[in-house]
């Protein structure tokens, strides 16, 4: 299945991102709970792109491991201000907005792999993987 890139420009794109993620997850064969986990992750991280990064995009990438295992990779990138202290941002309850501070630590619990790369002034990229 091909990758799909979704522009994250304004709040409505959060809805598009989570719906597309659910559709792709279902097409790959993820069960209902995993579909819900993945679309929730998309909603949280797409919101962060718009709220903190200004704008950016999501890439949804179905893929297979060398061993033939099916997975879904979601990549969220922006050219925003970046995160000065990633360890702090990953802490439950930490928010510089008026958020609950559950977005980053919470989505990490919902996926099998979680990577965040961010440079101050250079933007942020969060990559997550869930295996089928």
């Amino acid at each position, binding site marked *: 299945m091909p990758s799909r890139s979704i522009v994250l420009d304004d*709040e*409505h794109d*959060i*809805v598009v991102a*989570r*719906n597309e993620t*659910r559709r792709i997850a279902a097409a790959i064969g993820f069960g*209902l*709970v995993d*579909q*819900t*986990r993945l*679309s*929730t992750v998309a*909603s*949280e991280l797409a*919101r962060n792109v718009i709220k903190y990064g200004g704008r950016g995009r999501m890439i949804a990438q179905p893929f297979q491991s060398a061993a033939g295992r099916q997975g879904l990779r979601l990549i969220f990138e922006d050219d925003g201000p970046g995160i000065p202290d990633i360890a702090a941002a990953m802490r*439950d309850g930490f928010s510089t907005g008026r*958020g*609950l501070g*559950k*977005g980053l*630590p*919470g*989505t990490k*619990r*919902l996926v099998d792999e979680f990577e965040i790369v961010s440079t101050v002034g250079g933007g942020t990229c969060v990559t997550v993987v869930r295996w089928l």
Partner: protein
Amino acid sequence: MDGSQRIPILKVGRVLIVPIQVDMDDQTVMHLQERILSELERTGARGVLIDISLLEMVDSFIGRVLSDIAAMARIMDARTVVVGMQPAVAITLVELGLELRGVDTVLNVDEGIRLLRGEFGIDEDGEEELSAFAEQINRP
């Protein structure tokens, strides 16, 4: 644009019933919160029943708004019940780390109404209206 989708708020007896039937963007969620609170004020309703059975996902934003609605409703002496949360949504919410503090959740509108009735002594009139409404909901 004020492009927020319109979610109906029905007053039945002394309960506000909010059937969420669309996938809400953040603005719609915020407007809904404001509207529920002003309806509570205007009508003096004692209960809020939010039906989220059609929501395929509740993220930390929507989850927080549900908690906020419950907290503010309680200040106005009203109880909030969320009905129809998909099990997959409940599972994801807990894994995400949310608690939905102060919100009771039950399976369907019937149970929600039964819970609100148990909590308040809803007046006879309201009770009849509510029963009729529950019937109607069950036979669409």
